[in-house]
């Protein structure tokens, strides 16, 4: 791709961007949210048409003016959100739109056989006649990959494929990717996780604000250099954390279980502490927190808040006890996308400015502004629709919403997922400020570096049980993985 420019009303989304991918390499595409990665990929995939620029495949200039043209040129894209039909079988999904026909009818047997052959050839332990809805997320991703391969793709684009699968599954994904590159497929790999670059990528191209910044060979560069390229400045203190001696115990949980994902979790949190919860996806971390926040009706076990035994029946009660929970999936569980920043900021504390039929809208704005300032959220006005903000700023609004409830214990479930590097660093600094003021934070995260750098102590979970607690002095990636994988 050479000199690609794409203009949207009011913004130049891509400005003279070039990208070269060699056959058989994994080429990482890095950049903060809004840097133009997705737009570039969409131009390649024929979803957007660029105003300027040319695309060459194997030295030949091609015109990509639609998704069909992209497919015909051997380009396949695996989107971050999987696009499979859950009520159809694996084979039906793979051949969707180009089913093998037999006199006007779909030849189901042939289709299933061909799909199974493709799956087997790539070492995937999936039945072609299984319903896609019954597969795990990781398996569904494999189906997407097989579907892409079945187009005889020369270029495969993967948009954050590891954001929702566990480490074991990531390993298998990487193995599959290596198999593909060995066959000469060029892979464009988009990810926010720096650690993955070293493992799987050969070269990396960095974008910023819709412009090309540079291309590096992964083995000849390092994380700090790449981050500096992404943010355009040196990030000296990526993690901000002033460790202090924690105070008395504010929350003690004994043998928490929801009878399903969470089996036996006992732990305690002290005042002014950040406690990390590590583990693989599905280890039951979020489920334990849901019990504490009153979202699970019939949990068993004990919860003690500041020495008092309580049973939390619903989130309203949890808030009264001083607990707040920032959920894992911002889009599905946090945002009111079509509403303003103001609405999103104040929905938990309506009682503070609405008394019966009287509304103190000045107070409403004051509350909103307080948290915009405190978290340095970037929004043009309070009336801006939250859906128009970047992921990092959306997350700040959601964190502000819960801070407004004045919690003593703040539970952050994957607080930096889908948040760009600059905003991540800011969120860490905010967490540091909060615990300095005496708040206690529980942070669930699948990103080990942030767990290790931010936490006073780390609890590790595996299959619903807490398998260990690591002190700040003992914590390391290896130690966590050992407890997490068992």
């Amino acid at each position: 791709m050479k000199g690609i420019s794409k203009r949207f009303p009011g913004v130049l989304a891509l400005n003279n961007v070039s990208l070269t991918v060699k056959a058989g390499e994994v080429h990482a595409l890095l950049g903060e949210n809004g840097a133009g990665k997705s737009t570039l990929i969409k131009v390649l995939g024929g979803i957007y048409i660029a105003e300027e620029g040319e695309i060459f495949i194997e030295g030949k200039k091609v015109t990509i003016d639609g998704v069909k043209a992209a497919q015909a040129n051997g380009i396949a894209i695996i989107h971050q959100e999987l696009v499979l039909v859950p009520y159809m079988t694996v084979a039906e999904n793979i051949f969707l739109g180009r089913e093998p026909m037999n006199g006007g009818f779909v030849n189901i047997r042939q289709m299933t056989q061909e799909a199974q052959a493709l799956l087997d050839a790539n070492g995937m332990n999936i039945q072609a006649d299984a319903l896609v809805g019954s597969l795990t997320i990781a398996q569904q991703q494999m189906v997407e990959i097989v579907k892409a391969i079945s187009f005889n793709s020369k270029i495969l684009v993967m948009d954050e494929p590891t954001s929702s699968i566990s480490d074991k599954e990531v390993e298998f994904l990487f193995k599959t990717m290596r198999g593909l590159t060995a066959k000469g497929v060029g892979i464009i790999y988009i990810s926010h996780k720096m650690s993955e670059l070293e493992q799987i990528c050969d070269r990396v191209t960095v974008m910023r604000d819709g412009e090309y910044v540079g291309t590096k060979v992964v083995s000849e560069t390092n994380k700090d250099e790449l981050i500096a390229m992404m943010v355009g400045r040196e990030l000296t203190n990526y993690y901000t954390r002033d460790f202090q001696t924690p105070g008395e115990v504010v929350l003690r949980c004994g043998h928490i279980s929801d009878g399903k994902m969470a089996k036996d979790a006992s732990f305690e949190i002290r005042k002014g502490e950040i406690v990390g919860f590590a583990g693989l996806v599905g280890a039951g971390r979020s489920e334990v927190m849901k019990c504490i926040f009153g979202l699970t009706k019939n949990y068993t076990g004990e919860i003690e808040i500041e020495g008092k035994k309580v049973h939390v029946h619903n989130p309203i009660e949890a808030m009264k006890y001083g607990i707040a929970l920032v959920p894992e999936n911002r889009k599905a569980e946090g945002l009111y996308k079509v509403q303003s920043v103001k609405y999103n900021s104040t929905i938990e504390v309506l009682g503070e400015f609405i008394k019966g039929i009287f509304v103190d809208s000045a107070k409403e704005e004051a509350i909103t502004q307080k948290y915009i300032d405190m978290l340095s959220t970037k929004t043009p006005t309070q009336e801006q629709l939250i859906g128009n903000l970047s992921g990092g700023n959306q997350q700040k609004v959601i964190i502000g919403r819960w801070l407004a409830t004045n919690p003593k214990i703040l539970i952050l479930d994957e607080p930096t997922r889908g948040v760009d590097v600059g905003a991540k660093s800011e969120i860490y600094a905010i967490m540091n400020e909060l615990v300095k003021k005496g708040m206690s934070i529980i942070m669930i995260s699948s990103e080990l570096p942030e767990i290790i750098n931010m936490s006073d102590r780390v609890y590790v979970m595996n299959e619903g049980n807490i398998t260990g607690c690591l002190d700040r002095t003992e914590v390391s990636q290896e130690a966590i993985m050992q407890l997490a994988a068992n």
Partner: protein
Amino acid sequence: MNKAKVMAGVKKYTMIIALILVTLFFTWKTGGKILLPQNISNLVAQNAYVFVLATGMLLCILTGGNIDLSVGSVVCFVGAVGATLMENKGVNVWVSILVMILVGTAIGAWQAFWIAYVHVPPFITTLSGMLVFRGLSNVVLQGLTVSITNEFFVKLFGGGADCYVPDFLGGGEGLNLTCMIVGVIACAVYVIVILRGRMARAKKGYEMEALAPAMTKMVVICLVILAFTYKLAQYKGIPTALIWVMVVVFVYGYITSKTTVGRYFYAVGGNEKATKLSGINTERVYFIAYTNMGFLAALAGMLTIARMTSAQPTYGQNYEMDAIGSCFIGGASAYGGVGTVPGVIVGAVLMGVINLGMSIMGVDANYQKVVKGLVLLAAVIFDVVSKKGGKN
């Protein structure tokens, strides 16, 4: 002003602009007849039920694009019960009104229970209600028409020949003074509320709308109010039904925009999971929306039988469609979480003007339906397309 600002303004006031254009079109086509005082007055009286039902429907739609198909049948059933009580059983008029309200609200609660707590899809629940209460209306009325002779009831709900607020001030021929005074008072109250709001903001140092556009907006709105009341005053004054509509519009406009419960409707429609996570009882929000719909259907039922001075088993047919159409034309989102009471009123007025204009022009009733259907589709297409444009 730059182009982007103008475009944003056009987008914000699309339906008002459409309403003005449509009104101008019919003024031209009917030779100005549509603006005659009598026609303006009729526009309000004829469409009172639409305003009331559309307001209730908005709450249902806000919760996630859910509609209530049963309202037409409920309107008919409530009317049938009331007429039978008042006329055939000789029950006191106040008792009858109370019974009608209770019946409507109970029907709403019945459907709301299945929707909110058993999670039966609203479409199915209210489709059932539509059949059940249409059938029961026939049973109650035994397939006959019951005339309403109780004058008090008819007057109270704005029906019959003399359905106007009497002129207390005894204005001269051709101008109802009370009506004019009410118009002037309405303007004054509006101006005071706006100015006080601005002053409060200025005092606390918050930013506010620039003075010039705010003033322009205020003047335009006052002129519209005065022109409207002047037209009404030239005819027979304020239609009684207008009072009911105004009360409903103000109360529900306030509830949806200012109260805690009002915000919960938007929250449930915007993101139900997030709302649950906030500890808000989402089931209760659904329950309130549909119970309230029954309550407003009862009010619409009373307005309908008063206007017709009778109850018939066929009343209320397609009322649900008028209400739903008004909501979507007025900018409510078919996916929930978006829509306002003023918007819905503009939508309902737009439909009303189109109806009235075509009737005056003598367009065949069947073609009127065709036009209404296409307008609804056009409004939603515009909504969908303009949203798509905004996303990129």
